[in-house]
Every structure is written in structure tokens, then in C-alpha cells.
């Protein structure tokens, strides 16, 4: 199989950057899951969609807006009414989900190439993201596992909190390089490491 090429190109500069006066504020990385799939249920079929996701990924999603779950291999969260983003470390999730989601339940759309997954982790992750998004990142408002849809000016982003100080951001691939640069810029102040 041909590997996907990262859209970040030269903008991805592994190593340490910015102001380290107080240690590393955040770590930035590209997670490059094998699959990113949008699963969208028809109104009324949300539960069936969640069951389909569970049967494919083993992830049980709670009810409610933005609810999500994470395992070693998979991640999933709601980002819009009836819509979920589901990822897999491996390729082939779109086909697997499509197999479970019939036309009566909804649709599965492969976005494995269309979205770039960026991870930001560290004590200053909330602070850095706060510079870019008008969203309350504090854990009480944005619990672990849950996800949101938001936007930084022209750049649309879906964000899942995958740990106490870890967030996974899904942005449109064509914007990924610009977004990455901006994220690095925002992280300069607290010192960041690219891995």
C-alpha cells in the first residue's frame, strides 16, 4: 500500500522551539490515523448508528451532544446532530462502517485523506488552543473523550479531548500546513516540542 504523504511538508520541524524558560509547554505531533470516517445518521437513527460504531470499533458512545470515547486503536465522538467522527489506527474503517450502516441508518463518508489529525499535549495545551478558538477548553466544560466542532476564521476544526491535557484536532488537509504554522506560532510563548 502507498503511504499517505503528510501535508505539513517543510513546516513540520521536529525538535524544540520557542521559549523554554519554564519548560515545555506543549508537544505537537501529527497522528496520521489510517482511517478517518464520518458516520452520519438520519434523524431518529442515531442510536442505531452508535450501535454500528460500537460493533465496528468497540467504542460505546454515551448519549448527548459531543459525547465520545477512545481506545488504543479507535476514537469516536459526536460533532453535529447525528454525526460522528470515527478513527482507526488502521486503514479500511470506511468500508467496515459502510458494511454496518445501511441506507436506512445513514451514511459513512471516508475522510481519511481529507482531514489531517494534529495532537497537542501538555500543561499549556488549553492556553495555546485558547488563543485560536472561542471555545471553553477547561475540563469541566470539555471533558475527556468529548468532541466539538469549531472554527478558527477560515479553518474549520473538529476537536476531541483525548486526555487531561491532550487534544486531537482534525482540520481540512488543504489548510493543515497553514494551521500547523499558526499553532506553532501560538505555542512559541510557552515552548513546544514537535515529535
Amino acid at each position, binding site marked *: *500500500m*502507498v*503511504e*499517505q*504523504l*503528510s*501535508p505539513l*511538508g517543510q513546516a513540520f520541524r521536529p525538535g524544540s522551539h*520557542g*521559549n523554554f*524558560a519554564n519548560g515545555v509547554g506543549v508537544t505537537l505531533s501529527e497522528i496520521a490515523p489510517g482511517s478517518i470516517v*464520518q458516520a*452520519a445518521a*438520519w434523524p431518529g437513527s442515531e442510536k442505531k448508528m452508535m450501535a454500528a460504531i460500537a460493533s465496528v470499533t468497540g467504542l460505546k458512545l454515551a448519549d448527548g451532544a459531543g459525547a465520545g470515547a477512545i481506545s488504543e486503536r479507535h476514537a469516536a465522538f459526536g460533532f453535529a446532530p447525528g454525526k460522528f467522527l470515527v478513527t482507526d489506527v488502521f486503514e479500511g474503517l470506511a468500508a467496515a462502517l459502510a458494511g454496518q450502516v445501511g*441506507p436506512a441508518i*445513514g*451514511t459513512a*463518508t*471516508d*475522510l*481519511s*485523506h*481529507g*482531514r489531517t489529525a494534529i495532537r497537542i499535549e501538555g500543561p499549556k495545551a488549553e492556553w495555546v488552543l*485558547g*488563543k*485560536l*478558538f*472561542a*471555545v*471553553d477548553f*477547561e475540563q469541566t*466544560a470539555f471533558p475527556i473523550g468529548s468532541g466539538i466542532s469549531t472554527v478558527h*476564521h*477560515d*479553518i474549520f476544526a473538529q476537536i476531541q479531548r483525548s486526555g487531561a491535557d491532550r487534544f486531537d484536532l482534525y482540520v*481540512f*488537509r*488543504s*489548510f493543515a*500546513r*497553514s*494551521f500547523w504554522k*499558526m499553532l506553532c*506560532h*501560538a505555542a*512559541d*510563548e*510557552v*515552548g513546544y516540542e514537535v515529535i
Partner: protein
Amino acid sequence: MSPRRTPSGGRIDRLRTIRFTFDGVAYTGHQGDTLASALLANGVSLLGRSFKYHRPRGVLTAGVDEPNALVTVLRGDVREPNLPATMVEIYDGLVAVSQNRFPSLNYDVSAVNQLGGKVLSAGFYYKTFMGPVIGPLKGTRFWMMCEHFIRRAAGLGRAGQAPDTSRYERMNAFCDLLVVGSGPAGLSAAREAATSGKRVILAELDPQFGGSANWSGETIDGEPASAWTADIIGELKEHANVRLLKRTTVWGYYDGNTLAALERVSDHKAAAAKGAPRHRHWVIRAETVVLATGAFERPLVFPGNDRPGVMMAAAAMRYANQFGVLPGETIAVVTNNDSAYRAAAALNKAGATIVAIADLRPEISDDCRNLARECGAELLVGHAIIGTEGGKSLKGVKVAHFDAASGVLAGEARNIQAECLIMSGGWSPTVHLASQAGARPVWDAELQAFLPPEPDKGWLGAGAFKGSFSTAECIVEGFVAGRQAAGLAQIEVETRPHIEPAALDPRPAPVFEIKAKGKSFVDFQHDVTADDVRLAHLEGFVSVEHLKRYTTLGMATDQGKGSNVPGLAIMAEAVGKPIPEVGTTRFRPPFAPVSVGALAAERFGDLKPERLTPMHDWHIENDATMYPAGLWFRPMIYGDPGETVEQAYVREARTTREAAGIVDVSTLGKIAVQGPDAAEFLDRVYSNVFSTLPVGKARYGLMLREDGMVFDDGTTWRLGDNDFLMTTTTANAGKVMQHLEYFLDVVWPDLKVHVTSVTDQWAGAAIGGPKAREILASCVTGTKVDNEALPFMGIVHGDIAGAPVMICRLSFSGEMAFEVYSGAGHGMHVWEALVEAGKPFGMVPYGLEALGTMRIEKGHVTGAEIDGRTTARDLHLGWMLSKKKPFIGSAMMDREGLTAPERLELVGLVSLDNRPLNGGAHIVLEADPENPHGSLGHITAACFSPMLGKYIALALVSAGKSRHGKRAQVSDPLRNRFGPVEIVSHHFFDPEGKRMHG
């Protein structure tokens, strides 16, 4: 040297000496000084010049309300003009210069403007400079000549031209409670709220928390107020739920309790820390806001009140108590209220001689008498200052008897020598933010001030902001507001804080102006005098808003923080109405000026992100000249060394038509339209039918807007029964997406259709030309690409170099052509494989110019023709308007205006003089370069056609089709291009489409 540093006292760090320059002269100050305090300490009392008369000005205040002492701070070539010296913290190496003076602050030639005096009164511009009605200076000429000179003299500081290298940032914050102001009231509120565990933000514009507690000289429950402050701050720092923001001015109160604040992160430093911004623009969404913004002291209006050395009383006290600076050794006082006595006492304690206190009131309290006696001042009750003496610094004041009730002066004027005159005309609560939030201030006759109304929205008030002018009240009110805002039960305050010295009476006498001979300033910076206010009244500009606009009162950089109320009062008197009936002008954001850089934040230097195709880096490496298309970048040409743009695109287009070419089409909008009702949905949004499209085929579609105009076009591919891939033009991708979502969500929610943007999922490479099929055949596996397997508009799936691809045979260039779609992450891989496969066949990459050339030759329309004003019929696409079904736009498309015979229609043009045609040129029957007229339409796109060997163009021409075969002229006076053209069909080349079907 009159002003000076006291030997001890103040909250500056005397062990840390800081060097800076002002107008090129080196000075020193201490850590904790502002530029104003440091200059005063160095005996400098002339800091600026006023706007209109260029009068010498000193320091009037000690804070954001400063109208006079404006300076420019330089950092290398970067200039920051109009900063109040009272707000500039000094740092080692600070370079500040004065402004609005020539050649120097001391000798300013424009000071002659003062001689203009009464002629340069309010509104004089409107009455003159109109010039003659005939002759060479008629019309606007004379005025513009005058204006030229007026503009030379206008303006305060000078903007620089060097790009600012600072960073600016934005920060989003959320809290339950935002406390604005950290004086006794704000601190007390924050302390209470903090215990609730609620998220609290405390914002203070000063470099240190504490507000007036830093310099009031009071004790709170036996402890110096500054220590009380330090205790609370220490306590607040322990709370994880509290964020303390100093140097942070809350400047905007927007809808939904969204507040904007400016944090000056690095201005007080010689250099910002690595990665740190100069300013941070905070956007704070607060459940509740506690406004504890204090009050501004107002000046009194009397002749010569603007001379350097005249200062607000509380400011003078602050200089003494906080900065260890005496604004003068001999100080006179003029006041209409008690608070100036405290100032006099403080200044006296710090070492100044208080020569006299002129109190406008006929009687004063014993407390005041005692204070006056304690500081050894001559007490002149029922007296007023009627003039000041000195040039650029105060030498003395003139005092006369004054009757507050009638405003009448009596007796001989007396001269009193003084280096400094401090004044107090009462206090105006800082109601700006509440007013921005929609609260209408109410006049309080006791306090002679506008107070905030009872809160009804997302805010509460406390302290001097509410007109509570004693520290004890401030602390209690803060306590109550803090608890209320944090949702805590109200409890009785056990013991009211004990404040020493005891509070004085806060009520001023209702005297705002002392009428005597000479210029008495109301708005200091704008040189608006009391007479200007009366002139405005005489001419009928009595509404406060008219007063403001006619005289510019309150429109300067301080926005009338001190001057508004005195101005109003003078107008009220002239009209003979009470102040509240005259009203007050509207407060607007920002509360204090905000740097443009801060508001642009991370977009400074980077307005928009770049959108890149998966093959972007290849284009750059292969010398493509990139062309911005919205946020995207697309190759325009891949020029060879020495080639012109025209040579390059002609080569690319010709090679494509002769052999093959490849172009990156990844930017086309792509939308997955999925679901059982997808076909039905497409029938409704496209003007033509899609439900009949078989799986594995694509169709060209046209969309109209509801008003019947053409909206967008593109091909849509049926990948499965319920699965379509729609393509849109690059420019309209977002708009089409929104259009589809709107109809699905709002108009037809019963349709089971999902639309998803997959623009970024797919890389697209279009290869076309007579060799295209061979090239494809040589590199595709897993499918055939011959006519049978892949007929025109057919779709197949296969692999290229191991990557899965989807290929549709469709043509924009008019050649035998294929669009090869692969996963975007494979785009580069597939592209390189295609380029490699094309090499033996002489295939070239081509850019937008060649793409445009080939589409013009074919007469295909794009955004230049689909400009929002054309109908399908205008573009000869009437055949795509289905008669079998209604569709979006079908109901409106036949209105008379959309079917009129004289409408602009798409035509082709051929240049008959073999010279290039230009987009935007107009078409006329007879060109008249001297007097262009009679436009019939315009050129939308033009090129040199390698196939026709001619310069050709597409154009929209009135009744165009009827003119086929006729001659006309291009008329392009802007580029001085005139010449003959023939109007022809827009299908220039291969009208039957043999090549693409081939």
C-alpha cells in the same frame, strides 16, 4: 527646577535606576515610574502641545484620562504615537519624543494659531474657504488648496512606516465573574467571589493592583491601604480559580456579556520575552461582570487652566504618594469640594508648601478648615482662581472673591506665587462600560455626577463607580457585589472596615466654570473653550451631540473623560436648563484607545491561511508561477527561463492539443451527496435532470439561484445508487455547500440526504490531449481506459503506481481528457507517476493560463461569465433548463427583465488587428477614444489562441447572438486600446467536440 523627587516615600524602587530619553535628552527615573512621573521628577513640566492652538501643555492627570501629555515612543523605526505619558512605564533605553510641534516642543511656530483666537472659533471651517464661484479656483479648487495647508498643520503624533515586528495575540477566556478594576471595591468583590470556587477574572489597567489604595495614604483596619491590597492579592493568587490580569484595560462591553480587554504584556520592557506578544487581546465571556472602575476627577474651567503646572488634585496626590514626586514646591489649590484638601495635606506632608486654598464654596466644613490649617495653607473660602501666570510653566495664580450662587466675581484680583496649581471640580464615576452595555446614566444632583442606573443586565456595580466615594462604602459594596455575582448568600458585614482618616463630604458645589477674561479650556486637547460652547449655543447647536460635533468637545484621545460634564454644564447654563435635560453623549468602545495590532492579533502579518493542493510542493519545485484563487494557490504557468507569460501558456496549450498536458484540478469543490433521496435532491437543485444518470457516469449540471440567475456549474458523478460526487467551481465551493445545506435543513428536511465537503479528500489531476488515453493506459492498472470501458462521461476505478484512483472521462479543455482522482495523501504520488508516464509522449504540466486559453477556445463559461447577473440563456445554456420538473430558480427565471432581448449575451470575439484583447475592455460599434460612449458590453476573458493563431476573447454583448459575423470595436480607454473585432460564436474551436469524443 520646580517639580522634583521627594527624598523618600512613594512606591517606586529607588534602588533601581532607569535611563531613558525624552526629545533626545537623557534622564533617569526609578522602577515603578511612569514617563510622566519620571519627567516631573526631573523638573520637566512641558510635555506636549495642544491640537489647535499649539499651546504648551504639561501633565494634567496621572492616568488614562490624560489629555495633554501625549508622546510618541520609538522602538527603532517603529513609532507608537499619542501615548499618554501617564500610561507609559519607563524601562531602560526608553526613547520618547514629543509631538505636534515644529521645530521643537519649546519653540513651536504654530503657536501663532493662538493669535487667530476668535476667528478660529468653533465651526469656523464651515463659514469660509469656499473660494470664488467662477474662475480657475471655482468648484472645490480653492477649498482643496486651503485644505492642503490645513492638513499640514493637522494631526497629533506621526505614524511610522516601518513594519512593526511585535507579536500580537488574542485570548479567549470564560469566567463566571469578571471584576473590572482592582481598587478597594474591586478587590473586595474578587476576594468574596474567589471563595465560591467560581471562575473569577480580575482585570486592572494599572501595572499594579490596588487602584486608589496605592496612593490614598489611608489605613484600612489599621493597616496601610497598600498593605491591605497586597494581602488580598496574595490571597487571590492562592486560588486556582482566579486569574489576575494587570496592565489590562477592559475596553469594550459587547452583546452577550462578551467583554474585550487589552493586556499590555511587554510595553514596559525593553524587549518582549521570546515568543511573548506585545499586546494580548482578551475576549472574555463572563456570566456576570462587577464594574468597580472608580471615578475620574474633573477639571474646573477658568482662564489659563491649561498652563503647565496646573494639575488635577488627586493626580498631584498620586504623584506624591505613589511616585515620590512633587509637581511643584509651592502649590496653590482650587476646588469646589472636599477631596482636594486631602490632596493638599498629602502634598504638604511630602514636602510641598501649600500657599493657598481657594475654595469656590461660601462655606466649608471644620474638617476642611483643619486640614487647611494643618498644611499651613492660606484658606480663601469663597474665592476663585481667575487666571494663571507664567509662560510654559506656572509662576502664579490670580485669585478673586467669588460667589458660587451667582458666579459673580468681586473685589481686586490678587496674585499668589505658585509653581503648581491643583484643582478639583468634583468626580465623574467611570460609567463607560455600563453605558456601552446599554445603561443610561442618571444625574445625581447631590454628587453633581452621572451615576449608573440600577443594573438590569449582566453586570453589578461597586465603589466610586456607583458614586460611593468613601473607602469603607467601596469595600462593603464590593463585598456585596462579589457575593451576589458568585451566587453566594448575602451575609451581614460584621464590622464595617475602619478607615483612617475618616471620609470627607463627597458633595461638590455645583460650580463648573469661573467666568473671567481669557481662554478657559473645557476640552484641553482639542482647545475647546467655554466661549466655544456658548458660540455653539448661539448658533443653535444645543443638543449635546451637536455641541460635541460642532466644537469637537470630547472627541479627542481622552474622549472627554474629564471634560464632558463641565462642557455639558456650561451648555446647560446657556440654555437655562438643568444638566440632565441637556443629556450626555454616548460612550462607545473602546474605553481607552486600543492598538490595531492587538485586534488583528495572530492575523497581523498573516491575514488569511494558505490553502494548498496535495501537489503544491511539486509545482513550486517545477518553477510554477503561482496564482491566488481565493485562499488557494494554483499554478498559473510553468515558465521556461526567458519565456513571457504568453509564450509559456501558448506553449502549454499547444502541446496539450498536440500531445498531452496535465493540470492540477484539486481545488474544484467536491461535495459527497449521499442518501436514498440524493437523486431527487439533485433534480431539485440542478436545472437539468440527474435522477436518470446511471451509476458509473457523470453529467454536467447547472444551478440557478432562487432569483433565476446562474449560480454555479460543474459535473456530478454517480458513484452508487445513493452516492453522488458533486463538483463545483473553485470559487463557489463554500457557497454551494451552504446552499445545499440550507435547502436540506430548512426547506426539505424530509429528504434523506447528507452533504459532506470532500474537496480535501481527493487530489485531482486532469490529463488531456490526443495522447492522454495512451498515457493513462500505460500507467493504470486494474481497469481499461478504452472507449468501451471508459466512454465519454464514464467513470472507472483502478490503481496508479499502487494507489487507488477513480477516473472520469470528461473534458474542460475540449481534448480527449480524463480527471484522475486519488486520495489526497496519494495525490503527489499519483501525479508524479502520471507525469513520468507522460514523458515519453511529450506531455507537459499546464497552468491556469493555458487552462483558460483552452476553455476560451471551447467557449466554456467560468466565474467571469457567471458573475451573478447572467442567466442560463445569456450563456446559451438554455438547453439545460429542464421543462420536466421545477428546480431552484425555475419560477423566477422567466421574468421580463431576465428575458429582455437587449440582455448581454455570450459571444466570441476575434481581434482583427492582431493585437491582444484585454479582460474588462468594452465593445462599441464605433470607437471614439476622445469621448468613449455607447458600450454594448465587455470582454470577460481573452487570450492568444494557439489553435486559431489569433487573439480571441469571450464577451458579454447586448443582443450578442444577433451580431454574429458583424464587426465591432474594442474600446478600452483605460489601457488605450481600440481596434476592430469580429463578433463570432463563443465556440471557436472544434464546435462539434470531435476531439473529446474521438
